[in-house]
């Protein structure tokens, strides 16, 4: 296993990039601790797959260096980097048995048959594939095939990093949590450095110790699931993680105190507004707002039943503010007011947190 470092990585798919806009990755500096479980999370086009391909060696970055345990591997091929990869769709040999599929990456590297056998059986046990070992892979369901792909990725014990690129896309929803938790359990057991790329917040948050959120070629936050939820460093993280996403209220600062529509708003800390900030906003998640006797007056515009809770959409003037209310609770009629939990209310200047 290895500690991975990305130094000043920039990448453009164009031969002669002119400006910032031509770069798929703007500037990335990242340290991935040995043995960690990481997720790269972001919408399509954010640069996460480019970043993954730079780590694996499929793409050579326009600028910057990739280091494995301090050794520069920027120009090395994927084979030379000694990594394992699992892709979105199953990559297996239909004509081989499940056993031979799992053994292939080991035999390919000249591992002795005795060690191959021990390792294949160990991985098969972890993934509940023991009874399938003698079967031909061609007869399996998409789920079954993807499990073998996962097994092939995990079977070599000496790789520097195991990378997963949207590995659960083809898996039926009710099986997803089983495989997700299997992967997590495997990570805890083998302690390999794992990088998991996905656009699905649930997958990222439940798999990784550290989630790296990407947007528009930049890393906008690195944190634990709880940090991303409770203290989004950027309004994009607030929007992208959580459903519905974080509310954003236009804000002005009067004598250092944040105000919304002329009324002071209590926040977690005192904001430090950088000079020349163009846009100041108050960010608060729907989970941290409740109806109260005093507070911001709103009118209720829509109520959605989400089963165990209700999503209430309100408006104060033109500003939309959503909040979550428990199932079965009665909503205020006229003259509704809301209160924001100060501990979970942040101020953002040009998108970045300043409280």
């Amino acid at each position, binding site marked *: 296993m290895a500690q991975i470092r990305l130094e000043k990585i920039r990448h453009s798919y164009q031969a002669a990039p002119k400006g910032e806009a031509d770069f798929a990755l703007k500037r990335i500096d990242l340290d991935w601790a040995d043995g960690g479980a990481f997720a790269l999370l972001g919408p399509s086009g954010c640069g996460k797959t480019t970043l993954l391909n730079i780590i694996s060696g499929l793409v050579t970055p326009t600028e910057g260096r990739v280091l494995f345990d301090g050794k520069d591997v920027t120009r090395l091929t994927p084979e030379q980097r000694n990594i394992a990869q699992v892709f979105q769709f199953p990559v297996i040999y239909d004509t081989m048995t499940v056993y031979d599929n799992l053994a292939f990456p080991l035999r390919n590297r000249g591992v002795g048959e005795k060690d191959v056998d021990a390792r294949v059986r160990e991985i098969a046990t972890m993934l509940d594939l023991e009874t399938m070992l003698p079967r031909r892979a061609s007869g399996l369901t998409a789920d079954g095939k993807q499990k073998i792909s996962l097994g092939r990725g995990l079977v070599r014990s000496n790789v520097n990093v195991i990378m997963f690129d949207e590995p659960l896309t083809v898996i039926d*929803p*009710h099986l997803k*949590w089983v495989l997700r938790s299997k992967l997590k*359990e495997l990570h805890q057991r083998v302690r390999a450095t794992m990088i998991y790329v996905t656009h699905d917040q649930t997958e990222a948050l*439940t798999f990784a110790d550290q989630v790296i959120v990407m947007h528009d070629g930049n890393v906008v936050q690195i944190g634990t699931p709880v940090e991303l939820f*409770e203290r989004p460093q950027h309004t994009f993280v607030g929007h992208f993680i959580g459903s519905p996403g974080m509310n954003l209220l236009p804000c002005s600062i009067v004598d250092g105190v944040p105000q919304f529509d002329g009324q002071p708003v209590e926040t977690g800390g005192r904001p430090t507004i950088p000079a020349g900030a163009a846009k100041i906003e108050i960010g608060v*998640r729907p989970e941290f707002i409740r109806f109260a006797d005093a507070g911001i007056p709103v009118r209720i515009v829509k109520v959605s039943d989400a*089963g*165990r809770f209700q999503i209430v959409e309100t408006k104060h003037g033109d500003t939309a503010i959503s909040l979550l209310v428990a199932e079965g609770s009665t909503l205020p009629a006229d003259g509704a007011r809301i209160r924001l939990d100060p501990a979970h209310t942040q101020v953002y200047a040009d998108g970045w947190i300043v409280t």
Partner: protein
Amino acid sequence: MAPYALSFRASRANLDAMSIELKSVVKRVGNETHIYETDLTLNGGGFNILLGTTLAGKTTLMQIMAGLERPTEGRVFFDGKDVTGVSVQKRNVSMVYQQFINYPAMTVYENIASPLRVAGVAQAQIRERVGRVAEILRLAPLLDRRPSQLSGGQQQRTALARALVKEADLVLLDEPLANLDYKLREELREELPRLFADRDCTVVYATTEPAEALLLGGHTATLHQGRVTQFGETGKVYRRPDDLITARVFSDPPINTGPVRKEGGQFVLTRQVRWPASGRYAALPDGNYTLGIRPHLITPTAPAKDSAEIVGRVLISEISGSESTVHFEVDQGTWVSLSHGVHPFRVGETAQLYIDTGKLFLFDREERLIAA
């Protein structure tokens, strides 16, 4: 980046929308029965949702409604008129699938205009109608592009625009959001009911996700292995499922179930886990029942009112930031707890959890709902 502002429109019955009635419809293919005898009447005014897992029969029912498939037995009525043998071309129907289906060689404009061209609508009118629909679906700046130059969300909006522009009497949406990114799904799920709110059409929407059915509202038919198990207002089906199968179809994470005995004014789950049968449960006769508890009613902290303590070995513990999920082992099998906030558990440890005993489902021997 942030969800755009919403205008509020109360869902109201579209009086002019068509009613679709399936009478004793059966669909067999060879020796296999895909749809068992089904009676179902759908109206306009809000979505009609077909909720069930893959292969439950959702797509087959839609194809029968569209006229793409002919029922083996039974009749199909549109506004009381028998259309059983009428082909899809002669029914005014549009359909949107999970896969984004557009003509790759045509521009977005031509894609949206295609059903109108087929219908022989005048050029000027086509331009006007395409423009209006493109505006609603935020495709106006993209009309000159080809589908390959669009994101997944834009491609699916193009397919939706084609369905909208046709002004069909019946719109069938077969898991239209399944292939989209999570945030796009959220956005379009908001958008869809508004798009159809003031149109005189009946909308049928198939999904595998209980949460999606709830958020779309309207009416829901739950499907299981080729049978409609219940049909009614979405919230009512969720809160009062007629039977255990419906409760299972309408619960994600899966509903926790197990045998429970009522005796001497108490419910007895195991020797250690028992609680008083109070309120509406008090009058039930003693005997054996099947208990159904939704995951969010088992929590690491005791609810304000009635609760029973339960312990189990932790198999999986997941924290998503706002919610914690714990899968734990009890005598009845694997149960799931879903709670608000951050509650870390170690795999293998014994978790102490609380069942909210005021909101249980009880089913009888035939798995019909007795109390909710």
